[in-house]
């Protein structure tokens, strides 16, 4: 049984990765202590926070999660506020303004629930296309963990292989697909006319049935920033289950140093409480699952005599290869209504555009019809026209129904120059803030200019758009990857095939940071699969040791 000072397994971070590992470890009979930098709150509080956001802030997905002073994360109510935590530099600094949440449950509070897998090709960019890096193993190795992750999160998806991505599966989805609303169906029909398939997304949202103690999705259309009924998997629902199995969870515990000892094993982690008092926690094995920014930051903060570049960083790769899927957005106005806001906020994507021989020259991309209700956007635009009475109502209805947004999320290559370092600026506790240099690179820029922007204009024309505006500045997709990259060579990577640090046998760094490439799809299911792979390795290691 864990106490608040020690456990077999000490897990830093309570997001999807930390929670999946905690449950596996408890099931294996090991004691678990989880340390969370931020507060622990109830779902209703987040729902209330959301409903009390002023209209202009309702697309700021971090806004219902006000950070505690000791656990800052990005806030973007104003541009000045957005610059207060993440110290972003480089040609595409704006595109790394990542919306992650330092709360118990992590960013699963406001993830969309989308569960794309990587394809075999996504994992072999170097050998197939001569760019990027290959993963240390192939899709066949990851596939069983994808299936387990889908069962653990409760993923609904289509049973027809023609609609699965990729259709290489050892098990069916635990649930069927969710239905489309009018907009997603019309988008699907339109892109089919130009030879594209809009796939129903695999999504961690209960489809028509209860699953794992959570209710079926009722189409509240608020997956981002919070599912009010817990139909979507979020780690907040996992925390009580972990406690019921004997796990301990300490909130408001900001781990700021990883302590090494003889043979460079990890001896302890140190955390500050909200009174700035420091505490030391020991364990047999440590898992850092703080997310793709906070984990490399913590490793760099922990440099010592044995590890002068930081813990786990003999390769100098910690904090390098920072990835995401740089996003462009097409805003459409149409002659006929499409309608959004029916069902989940995201429920489909075109994925075939992520694959192709072009990947030697430019990246692939995902195209997604965003299904978030556009009533606030349409209403605000109609009010700005100074209309009143029936004319106002008609214009609100028209602008809400006859406008749409298509997101384009681009594949990015791992680049060691896209690098997280420690800023000389510090936070409330005096800890260095993360500084990130970010350039999406020519691989992405060529993808946009030669491939995705021309294609989205074709799609818009097929939809009957009367106006199409494509953004020119890349923005964040919140899929933080690469900063503790996996590989077989300890000189060129941070973790091994089980997300174990090459430099420390009892330190695991599972999650997005380990991903060698990101493809074009959302990263969470791959993070979850890597967590389960790491969990198997940890259980095996501790039982043998």
């Amino acid at each position: 049984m864990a106490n608040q000072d020690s456990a077999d397994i000490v897990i830093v971070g309570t997001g999807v990765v930390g929670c999946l590992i905690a449950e596996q470890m408890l099931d294996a009979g090991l004691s678990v202590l989880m340390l969370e930098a931020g507060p622990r709150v109830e779902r209703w509080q987040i729902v209330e926070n959301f409903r009390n956001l002023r209209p202009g802030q309702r697309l700021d997905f971090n806004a219902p999660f006000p950070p505690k002073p000791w656990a800052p994360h990005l806030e973007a109510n104003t541009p000045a506020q957005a610059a207060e935590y993440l110290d972003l530099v480089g040609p595409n600094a704006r595109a790394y303004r990542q919306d992650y949440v330092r709360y118990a449950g992590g960013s699963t509070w406001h993830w969309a629930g989308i569960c794309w897998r990587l394809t075999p090709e996504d994992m072999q960019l170097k050998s197939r296309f001569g760019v990027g890096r290959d993963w240390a193993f192939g899709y066949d190795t990851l596939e069983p963990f994808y299936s387990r992750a889908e069962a653990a999160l409760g993923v609904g998806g289509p049973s027809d292989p023609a609609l699965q991505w990729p259709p290489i599966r050892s098990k069916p989805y635990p649930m069927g697909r969710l239905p489309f609303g009018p907009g997603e169906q019309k988008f699907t029909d339109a892109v089919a006319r130009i030879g594209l398939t809009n796939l129903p997304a695999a999504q961690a949202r209960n489809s028509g049935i209860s699953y794992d103690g959570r209710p079926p999705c009722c189409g509240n259309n608020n997956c981002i920033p919070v599912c009010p009924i817990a139909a979507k998997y979020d780690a907040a629902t996992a925390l009580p289950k972990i406690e019921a199995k004997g796990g301990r969870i300490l909130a408001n515990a900001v781990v700021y140093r990883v302590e090494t000892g003889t043979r460079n094993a990890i001896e302890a982690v140190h955390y500050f409480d909200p009174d700035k008092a420091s505490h030391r926690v020991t364990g047999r094995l440590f898992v850092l699952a703080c997310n793709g920014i906070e984990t490399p930051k913590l490793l760099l903060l922990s440099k010592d005599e044995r590890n002068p570049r930081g813990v786990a960083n003999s390769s100098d790769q910690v904090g390098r290869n920072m990835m995401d899927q740089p996003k462009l957005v097409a805003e459409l106005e149409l002659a006929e209504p499409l309608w959004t806001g029916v069902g989940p906020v995201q429920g489909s994507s075109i994925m075939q555009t992520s694959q192709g021989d072009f990947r030697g020259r430019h990246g692939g991309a995902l195209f997604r019809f965003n299904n978030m209700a556009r009533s606030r956007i349409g209403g605000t635009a109609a009010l700005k026209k100074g209309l009143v009475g029936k004319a106002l109502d008609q214009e609100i209805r028209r602008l809400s129904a006859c406008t749409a947004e298509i997101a384009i999320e681009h594949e990015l290559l791992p680049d060691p120059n896209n690098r997280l370092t420690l800023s000389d600026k510090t936070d409330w506790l005096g800890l260095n803030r993360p500084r990130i240099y970010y350039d999406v690179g020519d691989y992405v820029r060529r993808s946009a200019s030669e491939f995705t922007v021309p294609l989205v204009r074709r799609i818009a024309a097929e939809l009957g758009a009367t106006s199409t505006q494509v953004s020119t500045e890349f923005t964040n997709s919140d899929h933080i990857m690469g900063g503790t990259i996996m590989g077989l060579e300890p000189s060129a990577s941070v973790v091994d095939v089980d997300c174990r640090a090459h430099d420390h046998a009892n330190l695991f760094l599972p999650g997005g940071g380990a991903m060698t490439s990101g493809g074009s799809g959302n990263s969470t299911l791959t993070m979850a699969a890597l967590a389960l792979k790491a969990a198997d390795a940890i259980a095996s290691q501790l039982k043998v040791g």
Partner: protein
Amino acid sequence: MGACLLGGAVWPIDGAQSLPASAATDAAAPFLELSQLLIPHHLDGEIGRRLAAAMAATDPALANQIDALLAIARARGAKVVEDFFPDIPAGPLRERALAIISAWYTGVIDDTPGAEVIAFELALIYQPTRDVMTIPSYAISGPNGWTSEAPPLTEMPEF
């Protein structure tokens, strides 16, 4: 008080009758009366009182402007906003009329950092599409109970 004549029918402002006859209630009455002339929908009395109080707190000219707008409406014998809105002179009075309409539709008197949200579910901005679009966080169907069908754009819901 608490009701107004609109198109020959009396539309009560919800909750108005249950109010105590306080000074605050009296202060909100002209705001509610004007609101009902500016907006041809059922209006919630409690939301109206809170909007009136919030708007009055930021601008002492509010009461005089409401009186002036009501005078224009009465002079035209207005029953709906289209009857008198064109006669409101451009400038502060017209801006005030639009601000009152905007407050009812958006649920805030001012969409800037720190603004207090007075209405969300009942904010009128969500109502012209309420037959199709979910008001975020409030489900309108059930488990997998939605479809790809939608009524015509011309079928405005009643609200």
